[in-house]
C-alpha cells in the first residue's frame, strides 16, 4: 500500500535541488533558462504534492513513517534519514509548495536584470529544499539536517545585496541568533539519546504509551529535552525575547522576505513544537512556559507593531504576535486550529508584504479624503505616564535588540578582548606543545588516577572553547582565526577521546571533514592573500566583488568545516555527542558552545573577507547607512 508514497517522497524532497542544479547550468544572465528551471521544479513539486496529499487522504490519512537511508551504523548507534508524513506535514507541505511556486513565478519577472538573478533562485531552491527536509523529517537527525540548510540559506538570502553594509551585518546577526537556536536542537538530540537510547523517530515519539512510560521514569531529563526544543522554537519563530531579528531579516528583495520571513521560515518554530507535541503534551510546566512565551510575545509584538512607521517592520511584528497565539493554541492542544491559523497568517502576511509598496498610494489617498487632524496623546483613557511609557518602550522594540546584544554577544566579545594577547606565533609556541602534552596524556590514559581523569575532558573542551572564542573575536588575522577553529575541533576530539572508550573510527569521521575542508579553506585564504593586499577581519572587505568564485569556494569550505551536511563532520558531531554521558552537562555545554561559535566564527570570516562594501573604491559604492 505504501510503496507509492515511499517512492514519491524522496523525489519531492530532491526536486528543489534538481531545480537549483539545472538553474546553475545556465549562464548568469540567461534569465529564461534559470527561471524555467526553478518554475518547472516548483511546478512539479506542487503537482506531486497535490497527488501525494490526495492519495494520502484517499487512504484515510494514514500516518506514514519511512526509514529512508542509514548513513552510519554500528552497534548501539544508527544515524539514519527518516521521513514522516501526517496531517501536520501535509498542511505545511501544501502551503510551502503553493507559496514557493507562486513566488518563483512572481520573482522570475520581478528580479529581471538584477545582478545575482541566478544566485537568488538557487538560494530560494536551497531554502525550499531545507524546508522540505524539515517538514518531512521523521527524526531529529533528519530535521537537524534541514534546519542547518534553512539557517545558511537564510543567511545568504538576507545578505543577497552583499555589497551593502546593512544586509551583511543583519545577515550575520540573524545567523548568530539562529545558531543559538541550534544549541537547543543539539542539546535536545543529545538528551534524547540518553532518554531513548536510540535516535528516536517522531513516529515513536507520538506513540503515547511508550512516551509516557519513559517520561515518567526520567522526568527531569524529559523536561530538559522539551525545554531545549522550546528554546529552538522560540528563536526560529522570533518569539520573546528573540523577536528583533525578524524585521531585520527583511533586507533581501521583497518576494524573498515575503515568503520566508512573512510565512515559511517564521512558522517553523511552531512546526517543531507541533511535531513534538506527543512528547510534551502532558508536561504541565512546559505548557505553562509555552503559554507565557506566547502571551508575552503576542502582547509585546502587538504594541511594537502599532508604533512601527515602516511597513515591513509592522507586518513582521504583527506576524510574530499571531505566532505567539499559535503557541498558546498548541499549549491548549488545539492543533487543528493552530494549523488553520498558520495557513491564514502565512498567506495574509506574504501578500501584505508583496503589496507593501502600494501602501503609499492607498494610504495617501485615504488620508486625502478621510483626514482627521490628530490630537495629542495615544488615547484619552490612559494617563500620560502609562501611555507615553508604553509608546516609548514599543518604539524601542522593548529594548530586546539591545538585550540580546548585551546578554549574548557582549560577554563573548569581552572574553575575546581578554584573549587579545594571543597571536599566530604564541599560539604555536603555547598550544602546540600543549596539544602534544595532551596526546601524551591520552597515550597514558590508563595510568592517570581517575579523580584527575574525570575532569580532563571538561578541561580540554574548555580550552577548545576559549580558542574558538578568540577565533570569533579576532580583529585582524584571518589565518589566525581560521587556524583557531581548526585547533578547537582538535581539542574537542581530545576531550571526547578521554571521555569514553575511544572509538577511533568516530574521531576520524568527525575530524576528516574538519581537516579536509579546513585545509582547503586555509589554502583559499593564502591564495586570496596572494592576489589581494588587504585581507583582514577588522572591517568588511567585500572581496566577492572581484573574486566571486573564490568566495563561493571558501563558503563551501567554511560550511564543510562547520559540520554542514556536505561533510562527514555532520555525522561526526552527532557521534561525538553519543560519547557524552547524560550527567556531563558541562562537557555537553562546552562542546555545544564550541560548535555554535565555530560556525559563527567561520561565517564571520566569510562575511568580513568576502561580503560588504568592496574596500577598493574605484567604482560607486553605497553609503554605509543605506
Amino acid at each position: 500500500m505504501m510503496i507509492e508514497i515511499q517512492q514519491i517522497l524522496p523525489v519531492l524532497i530532491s526536486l528543489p535541488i534538481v531545480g537549483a542544479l539545472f538553474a546553475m547550468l545556465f549562464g548568469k544572465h540567461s534569465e529564461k533558462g534559470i527561471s524555467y528551471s526553478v518554475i518547472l521544479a516548483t511546478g512539479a513539486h506542487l503537482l506531486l504534492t497535490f497527488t501525494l496529499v490526495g492519495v494520502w487522504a484517499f487512504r484515510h490519512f494514514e500516518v506514514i513513517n519511512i526509514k529512508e537511508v542509514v548513513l552510519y551504523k554500528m552497534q548501539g548507534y544508527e544515524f539514519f534519514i527518516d521521513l514522516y508524513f501526517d496531517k501536520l506535514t501535509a498542511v505545511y507541505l501544501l502551503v510551502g509548495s503553493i507559496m514557493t511556486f507562486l513566488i518563483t513565478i512572481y520573482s522570475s519577472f520581478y528580479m529581471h536584470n538584477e545582478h545575482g538573478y541566478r544566485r537568488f533562485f538557487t538560494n530560494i531552491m536551497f531554502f525550499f529544499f531545507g524546508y522540505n527536509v524539515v517538514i518531512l523529517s521523521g527524526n531529529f537527525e533528519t530535521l537537524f539536517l534541514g534546519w542547518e540548510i534553512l539557517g545558511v540559506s537564510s543567511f545568504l538570502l538576507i545578505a543577497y545585496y552583499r555589497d551593502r553594509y546593512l544586509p551583511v551585518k543583519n545577515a550575520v546577526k540573524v545567523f548568530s541568533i539562529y545558531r543559538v537556536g541550534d544549541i537547543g536542537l543539539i542539546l535536545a538530540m543529545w538528551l534524547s539519546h540518553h532518554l531513548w537510547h536510540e535516535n528516536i523517530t517522531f513516529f515513536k515519539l507520538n506513540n503515547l504509551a511508550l512516551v509516557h512510560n519513559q517520561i515518567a521514569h526520567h522526568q527531569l531529563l524529559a523536561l530538559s529535552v522539551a525545554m531545549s526544543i522550546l528554546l529552538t522554537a522560540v528563536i526560529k519563530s522570533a518569539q520573546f525575547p528573540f523577536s528583533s531579528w525578524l524585521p531585520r531579516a527583511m533586507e533581501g528583495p521583497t518576494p524573498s522576505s515575503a515568503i520566508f520571513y512573512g510565512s515559511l521560515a517564521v512558522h517553523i518554530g511552531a512546526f517543531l513544537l507541533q511535531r513534538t507535541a506527543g512528547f510534551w503534551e502532558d508536561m504541565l510546566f512546559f505548557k505553562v512556559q509555552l503559554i507565557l512565551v506566547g502571551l508575552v510575545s503576542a502582547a509585546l509584538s502587538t504594541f511594537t507593531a502599532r508604533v512601527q512607521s515602516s511597513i515591513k517592520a509592522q507586518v513582521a511584528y504583527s506576524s510574530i504576535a499571531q505566532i505567539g497565539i499559535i503557541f498558546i493554541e498548541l499549549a491548549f492542544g488545539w492543533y487543528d486550529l493552530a494549523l488553520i491559523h498558520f495557513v491564514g497568517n502565512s498567506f495574509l502576511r506574504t501578500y501584505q508584504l508583496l503589496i507593501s509598496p502600494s501602501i503609499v498610494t492607498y494610504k495617501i489617498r485615504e488620508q486625502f479624503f478621510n483626514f482627521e487632524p490628530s490630537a495629542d496623546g495615544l488615547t484619552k483613557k490612559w494617563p500620560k505616564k502609562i501611555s507615553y511609557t508604553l509608546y516609548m518602550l514599543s518604539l524601542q522594540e522593548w529594548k530586546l535588540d539591545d538585550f540580546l546584544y548585551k546578554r549574548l554577544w557582549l560577554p563573548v566579545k569581552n572574553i575575546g578582548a581578554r584573549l587579545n594577547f594571543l597571536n599566530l606565533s604564541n599560539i604555536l609556541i603555547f598550544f602546540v606543545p600543549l596539544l602534544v602534552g595532551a596526546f601524551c596524556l591520552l597515550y597514558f590514559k590508563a595510568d592517570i588516577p581517575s579523580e584527575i581523569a574525570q575532569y580532563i575532558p571538561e578541561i580540554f573542551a574548555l580550552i577548545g572553547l576559549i580558542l574558538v572564542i578568540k577565533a570569533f573575536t579576532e580583529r585582524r588575522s584571518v589565518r589566525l582565526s581560521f587556524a583557531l577553529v581548526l585547533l578547537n575541533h582538535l581539542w574537542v576530539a581530545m576531550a571526547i577521546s578521554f571521555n569514553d572508550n575511544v572509538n577511533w573510527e568516530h574521531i576520524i569521521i568527525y575530524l576528516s571533514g574538519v581537516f579536509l575542508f579546513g585545509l582547503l579553506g586555509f589554502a583559499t585564504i593564502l591564495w586570496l592573500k596572494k592576489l589581494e593586499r588587504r585581507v583582514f577581519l577588522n572591517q568588511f572587505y567585500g572581496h566577492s566583488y572581484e573574486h566571486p568564485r573564490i568566495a563561493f569556494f571558501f563558503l563551501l569550505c567554511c560550511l564543510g568545516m562547520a559540520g554542514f551536511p556536505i561533510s562527514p563532520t555532520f555525522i561526526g558531531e552527532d557521534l561525538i555527542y553519543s560519547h557524552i554521558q547524560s550527567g556531563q552537562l558541562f562537557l555537553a555545554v562546552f562542546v555545544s558552545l564550541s560548535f555554535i561559535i565555530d560556525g559563527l566564527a567561520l561565517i564571520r570570516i566569510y562575511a568580513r573577507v568576502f561580503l560588504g562594501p568592496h574596500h577598493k573604491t574605484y567604482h560607486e559604492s553605497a553609503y554605509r547607512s543605506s
Partner: protein
Amino acid sequence: MSKDHFDVDECLHQIKHYLPAQAPLKDFVHHNTLHAFQAESFFEATARASAMLGYKVSLSLRAFREMYKQDSIPSEHLDKAIRSTYGDVQIPHWREMMLNHKFEATYNPFVGQLRASWKNLYKVDMNTLTHTRLFRILNSYLDQGISIWQFPVTTRGFMSALRELEKYSKVSLFNSDRVQKLFQLNRPTITQLLDLLVGRASLYENYLFDLQFAHPGWSGMVAFIESNPDALLDKRQITLEEAIILELLLEIDVLDTKFGTQWKPLGLNNSIRSIDLFKKAKVTNYQCTLQLWQQAFENTFYDEVLTGIQKNKVISEPHTASFQAFMCIDDRECSWRRYIEQLEPNCQTFGTPGHFGLEYYFQPEHGKFHTKVCPAPVTPKILVKEFGATAKLKRDVHFSKHTHGILGAFLLTHTYGFISAFKLAFSIFKPSFSPAANSSFNFMDATAKLTIEHVNEPLTKDGLQIGFTLEQMTLVVEKVLKSTGLTHDFAPLIYMIGHGASSVNNTYYAGYDCGACCGRPGSVNARIFATIANKPSVRSELIERGIFIPEGTQFIGGLHDTTRDEVTFFDEEFLTSENAKRHLENKPTFNKALTLNAKERSRRFVTINTKASAAKIHAQVKKRSITIFEPRPELNHASNCLCVVGRREMTKGLFLDRRAFMNSYDCKQDPDGTFLLTILNAAAPVCGGINLEYYFSRVDNHKLGAGSKLPHNVIGLNAIANGIEGDLRPGLPTQMTELHDPLRLLMIIEHYPEVILSAIKSNPVTYEWFKNEWVNMVAVNPDTKKIYRFSNEEFMQYDPLDLVSSQLGSLVSQIENSSQNISAQLAS
C-alpha cells in the same frame, strides 16, 4: 584657513544647500540632484562634488571603452572631442589616455574623514550605535499613517514634543543620566553640544557635514519639510537644527554609556586636522579623460540629431488641418504624436507644458485638502473644486489596521488569510485593477463638474480665489496659443491632451505623472483649458488680442495614460453634431496611434515579444500597469536627452526614439524672443531637472540614486529605505535608470542666435543652466538651418559629423529587432 569662530546658522545654511532636496513621495518631482553645485560649470562642479562627497559623476572608463569597441562611440568623435578641448597636436596623447592608459583612481571624499576617528581612535562605531535610534524617532514623528499609534505629541514642534514625551515617560530615549538632564533642563544648542563632543571650533563645520552626510536621506527629508511644511498633509514642525541636536545628544549618550562621563572630546586629539571641504578639486588626467569621453558620447547622439534636422525636408503644415492636438512637452508624447501624424497626415500636433498655462489648486469632491496641479515652483492663488462626483473610494483589507491588532488579526488570519491566498494567485495569473493600484483616470471623476469660472464668492480660508476670472482665463488661452504659434488656421476640433500614468506597487507613482502638473495627471488642466477656450466671452476677448477663433471650432480635453497607452476625452456631450461626427472619426486615429506606440515602447520590455501584432502587444502593455510584480510598468523618462523648441516642421519625419521633449514655438511670430524666454524659463529647469536626475541616478546609482527597487521598504509614507534600519534613499531606482544613457540635455532652439542670447540673458536663473553647461544648447537658424552651438557664453557655428549609416533598414524592423537606443534618422 582656520576658522576659530563657528557660525552655526551659516553652517546649517551650507549643509541644507548641499543636502538632497527630494519631496515626500506623493509630491515626487524631478530636479537636478547636484543643484548645490549649479553655480559652477558642469565639469568643474562635478569634479568638486566627486572630491567632496565621493560621488561618481560619469560612466566608468570601462563602460566608455566598451561602447567604443561596439562602435556606439565612433572614433571620429574621440578626435573631435580632443580637438575642441586640446587642439589637434594633442590627439595621439589623449587618445592613448582614453583608450589604453591604466588609471589608479579611488574615491576618498573629504566629507566623512573627521568622524571616522571615533572608530579609529575610540573604537566606537558611532553610526551603528546612533542611526537606528535617530531614524526611528524622526520617522515616528513624521509618519503620515503607517503606524497605528501616532507619535503621542504632534501638535508641537519636534524638540518640544520630544521633551514632553521624555517628561512623562518612565523610559528615556537616552541611557546616560547626564544626557537626560542636559536634554530636559539645559536645552543645549548645537554649539554647546559640539563643545562637549568635539571641543575645537575649527572642526565644527567639518563635523556637522560628516554627521549629516552619514545619512543624507534623512537629513535631506528633514530640511525639505522644514522649508516646505505643506509637503505633509498631516503637518509637523521640524527643523534640521533640532534633528542635529538630537543626533549630537545621542552621540554623547553613546560615549557616556561606554566610557562614563569622562572622555576626551574628539578635537583634543592632536592627530586630527581640519579639512577645507569646499576647495576646488585638483584636475587629474583621469577626470580630463572621462570628460573627453563624456563629450564624445554626447556629440555622437547630438550630431545624429543635428544632421537629421539639417537634412530634413521641410513639409509645411497643412492650412486646413483636420484637427489639431496639444500634448505635453513630455518625451513620452513624442512618439505618440509621430504616429498620429503618420496615420492622419492632415492633422497638426503641438507641444506645450502639460498644465496648459493654468496655475491653481485642485480639490476633488470630499477631499480634505487641495493639491497643486501646476509646476512645483509656482504658488497659485486659485482653487478649482470638483462637485457632483459619483466615484467611491475603494478599500482593501490588507492595508487595514485591523490586520495588526491582536484580536482583529486573529479573526482575519483565520478567515481573510485564505482569501489572501487566492488574491495572491490571481494577482500573478490574472492581474486586475485593485484599490492598491494608482490609476491616472481616477484623479478626477469625469462625470463631476468643476468650479472653473469665478463668480464673486469670497476667498477661501487659505486665501484662495475660487475659479478663474475672465481676464485670467483669456490670458491663459492667449499665452498657450501665442507661445506655440497657433494663432490662425484653426481646425474645427482642437484637442488638449494631458497625461498621467497608472501603476501598482510603485512608490514613485508621482514621478510617472505629469511634471508640469507637479506629479499629478493633467486631466483637470486639459478639461479646464478646453472649457475656458470654448467660452464665447473668452473668444471675444481674444479677438481684441489678435486671435480669432472661428465659431465652429471647439476645444476638447483628454487624458493620455502613458503606461497603458489609453486615451479618454472629457465633456464630449458638448460637441456640436458636426464636431461630434468628426471626433468619432478622429478617435480611431488616436487609438491606433496608441497601439502602435505601445508596440514601439515594447521593444524595451523583455517580457514582451515586439514582433507580435500591435494589438496583442497593447494588451500586454496594459497588463503591465496592474501587475504587482512588474517593477517597470513603463520606462518613464529613461533615455531623454533632447528638448526641441521650434516649429514641428523642423523635426517632423525625424525619428527621435522617444528621447525628446518638444515645445512648439514659432519664431516668426516672436521676433524679439519674449515667448521664447517664457518657454525656456520653464523648459530649462523642468527638462534639465528631469535629465540631470536621470543622469546622476544612472552614473552613481548607489549614492545619488535609490539603488534597486526590489528591497525597498516604505518609511512613514514619505520615502523609501532598504530594510528597516537604513537611511532614506532619494534619487531614482535602478529599474528606472538602467536603460538611460547619461547625456546632458541638448536644447535645440529654432531662432537666430542673437535673439536667443539676449532673451535668456535677461533671466539670470535660466541663463545659469546654459552658461554653466548643465544643459547644452544649439540654435538652428530658421532661414539657413545653420547650427550654432552655445559654449563659453557665446554661439559658435557648429558642423555636426554626419556618420549615420544609410543602411539601417526600415524603422519597423529596427524597432522589432533592437532593445537598444536607435539612431536619430529620417523616416524614409
